[in-house]
């Protein structure tokens, strides 16, 4: 590829010049991407399924491969363009070194950005790498992060155990109480960080109000949308500035890789990228290839996950051995607003409490035959785990109760098996409790 082709593909250089009078003469504005001209751009008006399949595909100009090839190379030949990018600080747009950027990363990033309605995305080696890097990049020493008491354990540990060591303070509030969130804002608060649907109790954020609050108070709203995926919710449409996913879950969907992604405006994602360069945590090309492949079926899978979860909820809700089901579709669900911004379903997650407590929950899991009893979620195979002996085991019983994790709680991640098998299996297992 010639320098000229590269320039055309990736947007303009700022073009500093002795002839420039002052900074106002600089030429470069923000461009979407990064992407090369070979990366397929799918228009916004195309359907999600089309975007899932085609967006970001590297269209090989020489061989004609239909699928993005794997660019398993750490480094790329220098050109005048790469030298210029070093000088002007635009290295994110040029293939130089795989930690900086790689065509496979750009393929998968373009696909996720398209699905999220974002200008840019950044792939990471894990969801936690995405969260940690984003929070540090978008706050300053002395800054304050407002987050949720109902947070994925890994995120909670980062906020509780590490952020203060990095000069940031954190407060935890009820993520469904907009009044409590507003009351906890301090002068130095910079970021609101929440999950759109919490783990494991599936509480839904008052996302619309939160977006308005963030704008009104000059705060950045960063949301973890892992449970819903961009197929069911695009948080950027509701005022979020950055949306994060653990791609390990639904986005890849096959429980065969670990990855994360952050999406948003080019301005914020560039800042996160600059932080990622220093922290490491980029995603390897071969894993990008797998993730890109997984994403192609995301829309289909999310429909099936949602359908299966809803069917299982119907079977469990009101069952004599089930004390309570946590899912947006159950009657009396406490955050009804989720139905307005998630009209097409809530993904494959549900939780429920068995009347017999943790012993009953253990017996239930041992009697199941369809799902795997394992941590994680969002794969094509159903997965079941008990918070009391996994994600929330570090808490005391009282702390778990305060967090709403009552004895007997089961977390069920519905895969894409046939729902009748999932439901019948669960009912049979309940009969043995």
């Amino acid at each position, binding site marked *: 590829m010639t320098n000229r082709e590269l320039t055309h593909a990736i947007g303009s*250089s*700022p073009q*500093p*010049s*002795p002839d*420039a*009078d*002052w*900074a*106002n*003469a*600089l*030429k*470069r*504005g*923000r461009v979407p991407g990064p992407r090369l001209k070979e990366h397929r751009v799918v228009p916004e008006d195309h359907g999600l399924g089309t975007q899932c399949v085609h967006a970001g595909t590297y269209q090989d100009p020489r061989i004609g491969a239909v699928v993005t090839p794997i660019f398993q190379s750490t480094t790329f030949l220098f050109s005048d363009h790469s030298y210029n*990018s*070093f*000088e*002007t*600080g*635009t290295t994110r747009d040029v293939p130089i070194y795989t930690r900086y950027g790689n065509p496979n990363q750009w393929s998968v990033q373009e696909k996720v950005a398209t699905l999220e309605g974002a200008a840019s995305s950044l792939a990471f080696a894990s969801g936690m790498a995405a969260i940690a890097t984003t929070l540090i990049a978008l*706050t*300053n*020493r*002395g*800054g*304050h992060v407002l987050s949720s008491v109902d947070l994925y354990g890994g995120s909670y540990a980062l906020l509780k155990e590490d952020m203060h060591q990095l*000069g940031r303070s954190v407060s935890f509030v009820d993520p469904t109480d907009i009044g409590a969130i507003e009351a906890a804002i301090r*002068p*130095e*608060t*910079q970021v609101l960080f929440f999950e759109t649907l919490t783990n494991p109790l599936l509480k839904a954020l008052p996302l619309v109000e939160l977006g308005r609050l963030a*704008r009104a108070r*000059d*705060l*950045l709203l960063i949301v973890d949308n892992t449970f819903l995926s961009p197929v069911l919710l695009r948080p950027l449409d509701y005022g979020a500035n950055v949306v994060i996913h653990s791609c390990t879950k639904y986005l890849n969907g096959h429980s065969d890789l670990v990855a994360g992604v952050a999406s948003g405006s*080019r*301005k914020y994602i*560039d*800042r996160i990228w600059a932080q990622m360069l220093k922290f490491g945590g980029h995603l390897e090309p071969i894993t990008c290839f797998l993730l890109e492949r997984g994403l192609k079926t995301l829309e289909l899978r999310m429909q099936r996950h949602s359908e299966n979860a809803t069917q299982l909820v119907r079977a469990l809700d009101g069952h004599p051995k089930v004390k309570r089901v946590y899912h947006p579709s159950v009657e009396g669900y406490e955050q009804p607003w989720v139905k307005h911004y998630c009209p097409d379903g809530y993904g494959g997650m549900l939780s429920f409490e068995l009347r017999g407590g943790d012993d009953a929950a253990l017996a239930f899991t041992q009697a199941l035959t369809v799902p795997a009893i394992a941590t994680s979620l969002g794969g094509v195979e159903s997965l079941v785990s008990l918070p009391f002996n996994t994600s929330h085991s570090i808490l005391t019983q009282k702390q778990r109760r305060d967090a709403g994790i009552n004895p007997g709680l089961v977390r069920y991640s519905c895969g894409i098996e046939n729902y009748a098998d999932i439901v019948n299996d669960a009912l049979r297992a309940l009969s043995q409790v």
Partner: protein
Amino acid sequence: MRNGLNTGNMSELVHEIRSNPLEAQFRYSVASELGCSGDAIARVQTLAGGSIRIARPFEFYSNRDRDAQVARTSQEYLLTALGGCAMITFLLGCSARAVSLSALGMDVYAEVPEAGPLRNVNYCFDIEADVDRTVLSSLARHVACFSPNHRTFTDGNEVRVIVSGVTPHDERTGQTVRPTSVASPERGPVSPVSARLDWQYGTQIRACTSWSGRTRDGLWVDQPKQALGLDRAPNPQEYLLGSLNAELLHRLGSVNSDLVKTIVQSSGKIDLRGLLNVDPAAPTRVHELELSIGLRRAVAEADIARIQQAVSACGTYQTICERTSVSVAVKQGGQELDRFITDHDFVRKHLSSLEHDSPTGKE
């Protein structure tokens, strides 16, 4: 990354604020009070930078005692604010013009009278770069037009002064007061204050300041990471505001010992469109300046008079409010290339000599 600055980011910012001026509005704020030792403690407040907040967890101390061993005087911060802003502005210009610097230093000097604004304010760029002298001279003249703190000196400003107190019912009340105008004596004893600033990397500058022969090293200047810096230290606008607070606090203590318990908070706004010359109509100087003097009790009539007296006598306040000319010199490799005096008239003429998108001129 020429000169440690990301020209691409600067260019993107130019285009962003051209289409969205809200993102160009940066409001700085510093709150100060006197500590037990008599030092004025300046606490930099969260910066409202465009549509986000930027935490600025910095404190710096200043002492009225000119022989103080550790804390600097407010005037040393004021000179660092002037020189630091001019240097950062110069660096922005170098990056836009593809000028790579080997080294950049600056000597800043002024005389501090017993009352009234700084006198004989001057600074000298000390440049090492393989570039034509006319380019460096041109850049230095541009700095006089586009550096917010330089323009704050030369333009003159209105500073809104607010005095607030607490009623017996624990309610805070506030009123705007107009400082009495005081004629500054033309002559009288002056104290020299100076600073040597050395550019380190990007927008990081290390200053060594001197007052009455006593030198203090290791004062850092830096921009927030959202504005091309690395969050190392307060930036020039924050030093400017902290300097104003510190001198005022010390003067308040002089007029009435009860007023030493006051909290002084100053704030001011930068419009990046001025600094980057994106909109000729946008102000370059620190503007919308506000000085808030908060008493921890109810405000009495006598307090107002004392506060008016203290504000009026505050040299930093006067330097900001009046049009203060600044003499600028440029050295390359130790040899002087250029020397000129910048004032309101110089800025007007220099800007009109530049080609602008808008014919309205720059104020």
